[in-house]
């Protein structure tokens, strides 16, 4: 007899009935007052029917969405509660087997219809009437005077401008999923770390697998080592599309973080000053970015990405005077530590190209190996047949 059977036996019929009654009554959707159908759970733990949530979100499309029960802002896309769904389906099927009246049959067929709609929405990637698409979180950078910014285009968001009816970025028109508030506590920061991670996950397709994992690792490292300000700098890097640059920065910081753990006290101060120099540089980037975005009618980060890459290439070819100036400045700050230098930033794309080439070579050699091993096995067959 397994554990579950034992428990059921010990409880007796009456208590088991109470359990089922309790489960069913607590599984009522607070929106339609029926037993939950396709239960969807919000981050606060409250569950609602998919169809109920969908229509609640849809009637509040551009607003700050909140949990119907506790009003916690719905800043992450709610998820299907598979466990609860299994439990409820199990009980409802038992009822079905017993035979029910026509009213029940109608209820069950309605549930099936809603489930078909849900499955269709999943298949067509249009869950919740797309209210979570073209949406983002407001992020706050402590080194930017704690001003809340749009997580998509980094436009400055004024909490007073956020209308009750429209919680949207005035620049890129993305819906802001959380409450726009200036930073006044450390909680805001930890929230922004989470939000950045979420936004990155959504944009994961823009990165190759390795790159994405590196970024997530870096974010974790930052948030663990209380260098959260770095994350926001980092995200501005990401948005201003200096992808090569930011990746290389972080590789260097990785090394640094490792050495820090070895000799923490000694290196702490130096590390801070390095961060400062980076932040300064990042602020310049931010300014540039804002000017860029003012000229552009909509967010075109991808396009910008390419143009920046092109610039980098030009820099390499022409040895642009301005950039080399900035680079040497950078170098002065960091050369003692063997930290990544400005020059190597430009080399970044070079390195990447080289890396890519290497990868290609590897892939080719793998192919060659494959072919040769196949040849070998064929040879083996030949030998065998010879033996025969």
């Amino acid at each position, binding site marked *: 007899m397994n554990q579950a059977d034992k428990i059921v036996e010990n409880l007796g019929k009456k208590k088991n009935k109470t359990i089922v009654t309790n489960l069913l009554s607590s599984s009522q959707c*607070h929106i339609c007052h*029926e037993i939950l159908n396709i239960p969807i759970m919000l981050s606060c733990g409250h569950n609602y029917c998919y169809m109920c949530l969908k229509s*609640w979100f849809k*009637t509040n499309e551009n607003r700050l969405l909140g949990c*119907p029960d506790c009003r916690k802002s719905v800043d992450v896309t709610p998820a299907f509660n598979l466990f609860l769904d299994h439990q409820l389906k199990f009980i409802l099927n038992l009822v079905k087997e017993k035979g029910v009246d026509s009213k029940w049959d109608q209820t069950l067929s309605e549930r099936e219809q809603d489930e078909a709609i849900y499955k269709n929405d999943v298949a067509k990637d249009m869950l919740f009437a797309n209210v979570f698409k073209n949406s983002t979180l407001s992020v706050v950078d402590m080194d930017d005077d704690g001003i809340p910014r749009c997580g998509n285009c980094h436009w400055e968001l004024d909490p007073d401008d956020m209308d009750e009816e429209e919680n949207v970025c005035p620049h890129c028109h993305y819906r802001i999923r959380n409450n726009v508030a200036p930073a006044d506590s450390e909680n805001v920061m930890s929230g922004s770390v989470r939000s950045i991670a979420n936004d990155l996950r959504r944009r994961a397709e823009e990165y190759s697998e390795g790159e994405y994992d590196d970024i997530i690792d870096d974010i974790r490292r930052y948030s663990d080592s209380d260098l959260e300000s770095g994350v926001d700098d980092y995200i501005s890097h990401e948005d201003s599309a200096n992808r090569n640059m930011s990746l290389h920065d972080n590789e260097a910081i990785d090394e640094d973080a490792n050495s820090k753990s070895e000799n923490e006290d000694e290196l702490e101060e130096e590390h801070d000053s390095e961060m400062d120099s980076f932040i300064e540089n990042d602020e310049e980037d931010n300014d540039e970015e804002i000017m860029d975005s003012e000229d552009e009618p909509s967010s075109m980060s991808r396009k910008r990405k390419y143009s920046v890459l092109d610039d980098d290439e030009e820099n390499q070819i022409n040895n642009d005077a301005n950039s080399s100036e900035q680079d040497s400045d950078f170098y002065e700050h960091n050369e003692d530590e063997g930290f990544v230098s400005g020059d190597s930033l430009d080399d970044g794309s070079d390195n990447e190209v080289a890396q890519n080439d290497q990868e290609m070579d590897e892939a080719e050699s793998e192919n060659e190996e494959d072919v040769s091993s196949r040849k070998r096995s064929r040879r083996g067959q030949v030998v065998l047949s010879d033996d025969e």
Partner: protein
Amino acid sequence: MASLPKRIIKETERLVSDPVPGITAEPHDDNLRYFEVTIEGPAGSPYENGIFQLELYLPDDYPMEAPKVRFLTKIYHPNIDRLGRICLDVLKTNWSPALQIRTVLLSIQALLASPNPNDPLANDVAEDWIKNEEGAKNKAREWTQLYATKK
């Protein structure tokens, strides 16, 4: 007219079988979305002993949209205007589909117990309330006597 959603039927049944103390709500025979409501003035408030009549209408989008509620009985209250319209957050921006007819009516009863002159709808009443609270409460008592008491 589209058939009545199950939720409205359930709520109506429960309002009858398990009524809220001091509140009655009955659907109209011709239109099951239209309710005739009475609320007793809360004890200890200037509205004590008054019985206030209200109308409540469930819009087509209910429960995604808040019910529309209006006082039919004249009342001297900083958050209720001459037309009986009510200034209450849950009836406007803070509506949630997890709220119900009964919770809305309870909120209105609570509003009678604690008027909020700092967020007024009837400006003249609110001004009176801030300048001379005792006088305003006396006037509210008078109006309750005049308009909200069965003779």
